[in-house]
């Protein structure tokens, strides 16, 4: 059984937002809502300025608070590590949105159900990569199977020092960050 993960190489991100657009297009994400975002943090005063570009999305946490807080079982985790929402079961109680430390969820205004990144599960089934990964022109997003030692993500995870966001939340994310500067 594969164990999907994403590595985000922040050194390569140029902040073009192509991933944000590709995700919206691919997944028919409702107006004014997003499954992925790019955070730009500019620090300092000219000429000593530093910029961090950080693409963010659902971390498909191994210990996912959205899943264990869902009262109806609508939020669930597949064996391959992907966290999904079964909208037929969702009551729109928003417990999962309150529980997610990464603010990765929202309510789809078209049907009232919780909505989030699926790692483009439909594309994975066809042997393709998520739309944001395929679109990224600088290859800052790398997707693959951690259980396959030959996959690029496995190799990066084995060789590089990676970080995760908000480690203190204890969610064990499947999205890793490769960066020059320490992440909080």
């Amino acid at each position, binding site marked *: 059984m594969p164990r999907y993960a994403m590595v985000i190489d922040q050194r390569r991100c140029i902040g073009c937002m192509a991933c944000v657009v590709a995700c919206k297009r691919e997944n028919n994400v409702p107006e004014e809502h997003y499954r992925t*975002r790019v955070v730009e943090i500019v620090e300092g005063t000219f000429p000593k300025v530093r910029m961090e570009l950080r693409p963010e999305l659902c971390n498909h946490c191994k210990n996912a608070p959205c899943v264990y807080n869902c009262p109806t079982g609508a939020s669930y985790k597949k064996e391959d590590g992907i966290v999904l929402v079964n909208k037929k079961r969702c009551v729109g109680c928003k417990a999962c949105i309150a529980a997610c430390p990464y603010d990765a969820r929202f309510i789809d205004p078209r049907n009232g159900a919780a909505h989030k990144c699926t790692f483009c599960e439909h594309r994975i089934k066809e042997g393709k990569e998520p739309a944001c990964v395929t679109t990224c022109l600088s290859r800052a997003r790398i997707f693959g199977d951690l259980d396959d030692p030959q996959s690029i993500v496995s190799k990066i995870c084995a060789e590089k020092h990676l970080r995760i966001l908000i480690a203190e939340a204890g969610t064990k994310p499947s999205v890793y960050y490769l960066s020059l500067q320490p992440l*909080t």
Partner: protein
Amino acid sequence: MKEIAITGANAITYPHLEIWNWAISIYLFLGGMVAGLMVLGAISQFRPSSTTDAGRPFVCYLAPVLSPILLSIGMFFIFLDLSRKLNAFWFYLNFNIMSPMSWGAWGVGLIIPLSTLWALASIPEEHRHYLRWPKLHDFSFKISAYRNKLAGVNLALGIFLGIYTGVLLSGYVARPLWNSAVLPLFFLNSGLVSGSAMIILIARNYQEKLYFTKLNIWLTTAEIVLVLLFYYSHLTSTAPHREALIPFFTAVLFAGIIFPIALELPVITARRPAPLRVHLIAVLILLGNLAIRVAFVYVGQLSSLSDIARR
């Protein structure tokens, strides 16, 4: 200097979470008050004077009758908040042991019928004729023999009801203000405070009103201790917890507790305080507790762990 720009931010989560509104605050307030009514009503039922219909204080009838009604109103507000209302039956086709909301849905589903039974069992003989249907009348007579047993069950359910909303909010690591183990106890205690204030307002007997006003002072004193512990737990925790205690929240919290108790204290020292004054204090206590619940819902959503990842 630091500048943050986000392409792809969702308005309901950035700059802060905005998912639960006044409807949830009202549910929390009513749920807490019902918990208080159930606990205080059941305890009054166990007092030695309550063995006969004549000796039982009014609260022994009042609390069981009001509980299912007020809780059903609270449930209506929860229902209003659901964004997929027609799917609400899924709450009862699934039980997630790790989800406090699942515990709550099943718990409330159990409390409404059991408190209704308690209400039927508690109706005194001389008022039973208000039950129009003869079968209901007979049923009320039959189960009145189990009045004490039902009070015991409702006492336990009242404590559950008072605590679970606090457990629900305190379990969210993502929202530092709510994430404190003191919150469930604070919610239970504040439920007892509003329950006793409600009893003060509707009790028929002046002595009973005075008795619950005195009890209310003790409960409010406990509330102050719990608020201080709540603050202590945050102040000694990490930065997001410390920052969650923003000034206006502090103001609401203390105004909701200190102001009513300041008015309440002279009532105790007076020999026979005017009933109007006793009622006024009860109303202020209820408003104070409502303000506290509203503040908890809104300020809890302002505090966010993901903020620190961006600093």
